[in-house]
């Protein structure tokens, strides 16, 4: 039997008394037991704690207390968000046994809404990667084809939702880390505008790019979850103090008259033909429903990968400096002195990709090179942002493929960092510009792998972005197709 209830339906069934939270949570752990052996989407989970929380929800309902919008819904979060329960590993040997004394803002928000966080999902180490092969604790496989990667770095969250382990999950997106795995696994992935969701308690990768976002089965769930986690948090100076609209209530705005921008920069060399056709079909469908297709120009888009890998690695080199073996995390067994303690702890605690990026970023910030690399990248970023500002004067959303290809095979890009970096070519610019973007299933490849359509909206334009995406889903059923691993059980 296939069970992929949405977050929305799950919450409704608990609130309406059709099912108990305990029953739902128990089922969720059964599916983890049967399915996750093959996928390895989860890094940790705690059945006892989750069931205890579920009973609290059931007791609250029984005594007539008001329930939060996500009451009794089991959720998973990427293991780079701090929780006071379990470890927060970031997929790294460095933090294998790190237990945070505080919870991330989003964790507080979800739990306040009644959600039950059942566990933490796999990721590329410190969210650096596009395949979830680069964590210290093994790869997460794609539920549609276990020889394929789940995408990354939020591959664990995407696979968990696609396989029906949980109705929804949180990921983090620095250059596409929510959207790309969502596309590969055939689920919805939203990267909110920079500043929409507090980063407090999200272990930083590229601080000026990181945003936490939902991975869900449909757009309505993404809207529901965003409404819960969005909003100002005084502990994050970059979180913006803007009211949070009722995203779910606004989903029904019609497609008619919506201006959808398309740009050649997203349909050039390297784009798979099936992908091109499928995305073009999706755009055609929206035109048929009354949307207006407008051609736009994003002349600096072509520099975005280069610009991103300078800025993100520069920030990462500094953000990851704190992992030194002094106060917490991995420390080398027998340091000969303080310098050796630093060098050996970091040398042994970090994986290859993390070390590569720390070195890249350190170089980009070094005296004599900062002008040519870091400061130049900041200047280019400003131009990319301006491209988007100009574009959004003429269009409401921009449509593109989320990725150049469908999910690639495990190990396929492992020896070629550059090929891996190019995975993010269509997603990176939204992070550089700080705008919001969503990936939604728009079809399948001839080998039955999901393909993703990306829609981007202006900063703090989530309302319109979500309604356009929802209207697309009203006319399609790609998002309802379950992967074989979810229906086989």
């Amino acid at each position, binding site marked *: 039997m296939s069970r992929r209830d949405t977050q929305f339906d799950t919450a409704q069934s608990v609130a309406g008394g059709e099912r108990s939270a305990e029953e739902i949570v128990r089922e969720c752990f059964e599916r983890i037991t049967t399915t996750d052996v093959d996928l390895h989407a989860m890094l940790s989970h705690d059945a006892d704690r989750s069931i205890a929380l579920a009973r609290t929800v059931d007791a609250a309902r029984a005594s007539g207390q008001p329930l939060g919008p996500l009451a009794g819904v089991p959720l998973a979060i990427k293991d780079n968000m701090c929780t006071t329960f379990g470890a927060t590993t970031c997929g790294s040997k460095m933090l294998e046994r790190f237990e945070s004394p505080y919870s991330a803002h989003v964790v507080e928000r979800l739990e306040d809404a009644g959600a039950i966080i059942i566990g933490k999902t796999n990721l590329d180490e410190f969210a650096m990667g596009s395949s979830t092969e680069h964590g210290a604790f093994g790869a997460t496989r794609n539920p549609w084809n276990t020889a394929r990667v789940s995408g990354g770095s939020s591959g664990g969250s995407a696979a968990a939702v696609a396989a029906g382990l949980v109705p929804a999950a949180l990921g983090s997106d620095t250059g596409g880390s929510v959207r790309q795995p969502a596309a590969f696994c055939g689920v919805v992935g939203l990267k909110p505008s920079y500043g929409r969701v507090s980063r407090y308690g999200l272990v930083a990768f590229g601080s000026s790019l990181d945003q936490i976002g939902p991975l869900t089965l449909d757009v309505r769930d993404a809207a529901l979850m965003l409404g819960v986690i969005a909003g100002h948090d005084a502990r994050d100076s970059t979180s913006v103090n803007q009211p949070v609209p009722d995203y779910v209530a606004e989903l029904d705005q019609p497609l008619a008259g919506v201006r959808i921008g398309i740009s050649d920069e997203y349909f050039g060399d390297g784009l798979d033909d099936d992908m091109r056709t499928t995305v073009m079909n999706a755009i055609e469908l929206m035109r048929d429903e009354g949307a207006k297709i407008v051609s736009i120009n994003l002349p600096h888009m072509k520099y975005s990968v280069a610009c991103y890998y300078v800025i993100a690695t520069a920030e990462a080199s500094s953000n990851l400096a704190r992992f030194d073996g002094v106060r917490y995390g991995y420390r080398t067994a027998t340091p000969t002195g303080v310098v050796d303690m630093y060098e050996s702890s970091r040398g042994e605690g970090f994986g290859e990709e993390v070390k590569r990026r720390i070195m890249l970023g*350190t170089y980009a910030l070094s005296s004599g090179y900062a002008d040519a690399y870091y400061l130049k990248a900041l200047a280019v970023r400003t131009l990319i942002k301006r491209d988007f500002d100009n574009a959004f004067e003429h269009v409401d959303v921009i449509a593109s493929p989320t990725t150049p290809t469908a999910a690639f095979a495990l190990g396929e890009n492992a020896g070629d960092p550059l090929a891996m970096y190019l995975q993010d070519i269509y997603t990176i610019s939204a992070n550089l510009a700080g705008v919001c973007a969503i990936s939604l299933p728009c079809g399948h490849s001839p080998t039955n792998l999901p393909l993703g359509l990306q829609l981007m909206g202006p900063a703090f334009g989530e309302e319109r972005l979500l309604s356009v995406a929802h209207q697309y889903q009203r006319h399609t059923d790609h998002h309802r197709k379950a992967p074989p691993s979810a229906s086989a059980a």
Partner: protein
Amino acid sequence: MVDAQIAVRPIIGLEIHVQLLTRSKMFCGCPVRFDDPPNSLVCPVCMGLPGALPVINRRAVELTILTGLAFGGTIATHTKWDRKSYYYPDLPKNYQISQFDLPLVSNGHLDVDVGHGEHRVRIRRAHLEEDAGKNVHDVGGHTLVDLNRAGTPLLEIVTEPDLRSAEEACALCTGLHRLVTYLGVSEGNMKKGQMRFEPNVNVAIEHDGVEYRTPISEIKNLNSFRAARDAIDFEIDRQVAAWHEDHSYVLGSAPNENRGFDADRGVTEFQRDKEAAQDYRYFPDPDLVPVNVSDAMLNEIRQSLPELPDARTARWVKDHSLSVEDAATVVGHRATADLFDAVISAGGPPAIVIKQFVNVWLSHAKQRGVTIGDLGIDPERMAELAQIVADGTISKTAADRVAEIMLARNRFDAGTEDASDTVTPSVARTLPTTKANNAARCPSPLALAKELRLLQVRDTAATDVWIDEVFAANEQAVQDAMTNPKKRKAAAGFLRGQVMKKSQGKADPKLVGELIDKRLTGSA
């Protein structure tokens, strides 16, 4: 070594770190305190835990701007925060949040005077940053880290190399100390490391009409005025000697150095070449938004800027005809100076108030190890005591006695307050503490004078009785005054003093003088 043809000119600049007096740390809510158990004043932010984010302490920004305004600096309308990267166990994030190219304050100045007139020292910049924690070495063979201090707001002030001697450098340090404590922006407690100095020193040596400059030494982390002076003096001599030894010891040929100061031995010691200095890889901190200082904010802070000692002295000299010397004894301590102004506003005659401040109140305060404000006498009472001296109701001598009784009877005599720290209780206050004590006013000086029978006696007959007694007891002095006109003045003064004493201060000194003069000259 002695060479008649050389002239040595020291070139000294200073970097001064001042711990700001804020309740909480620079980027988190942890309290700023000294002497708590190790690692008890910490949170995820100041421990640098994964995922924690900094939030600016607005008060620290305000205090920096206030200080900048006080030394005539330009306040940036737009500033940002930068990360300065280096690895050290007491630096939890392995970067320090500081300000690199857009300091909050630039281009100020402070004047120093070491006896050859005022010399203006330019201040290049002043910026905000966070302090590191402390490494405690050799605890059972280990180094332990205490992060209580980590994240304490630090104001770093950098001067141009305008100082010409260790004495001038020391004067700048003390002047700055006075300023920051006066403004209430820092406690300036040197023992707690709240002010630390790092001089940059080199010398220009003129030899046969050619100028040579030695490499620049930065002397790290000096914790007292004396250490600053001694370290600079030593360093000047060392550099001159090094140049004599080897004339290639000049800028460009020999490296600039970081040096430490061993206070016990009084010597500076090599730490490392500046040439091999770390690359700090400054870049803007993406976790913090830039700060824009609005005109409204700047005006608000400007209005809170107190009248500074120089301006206040000038006003007192002009409006109240005080001498600069008298003014100087009161003006340097802000709460005391505020209290003085309050007493004048309450009607105290300035000439007498200042004398009572200097001779009476200040000495009582010193005895108790507190400041005048801490004595708990409200300004109205102080004004009254001065008034009754001015109008002749009591004598100056009697006023001293009344003051003593006022203090003794004042239930809020600050002798009970913590007197161990003479600076702490008062610097943070901008108003005299006596305001709060109005409910428990000390007795009226006039009532006390009446009660103690200290009112001045202007009755000629009563005064004559005292004079008779004094003349009888001091026949020799009387004889001298009457027979030797040269001794008359001194003898008359002595006799007048004796009469005042005999009257227990009640006699009117003017009347006494007249009556004595009349007797001494009249019967000659």
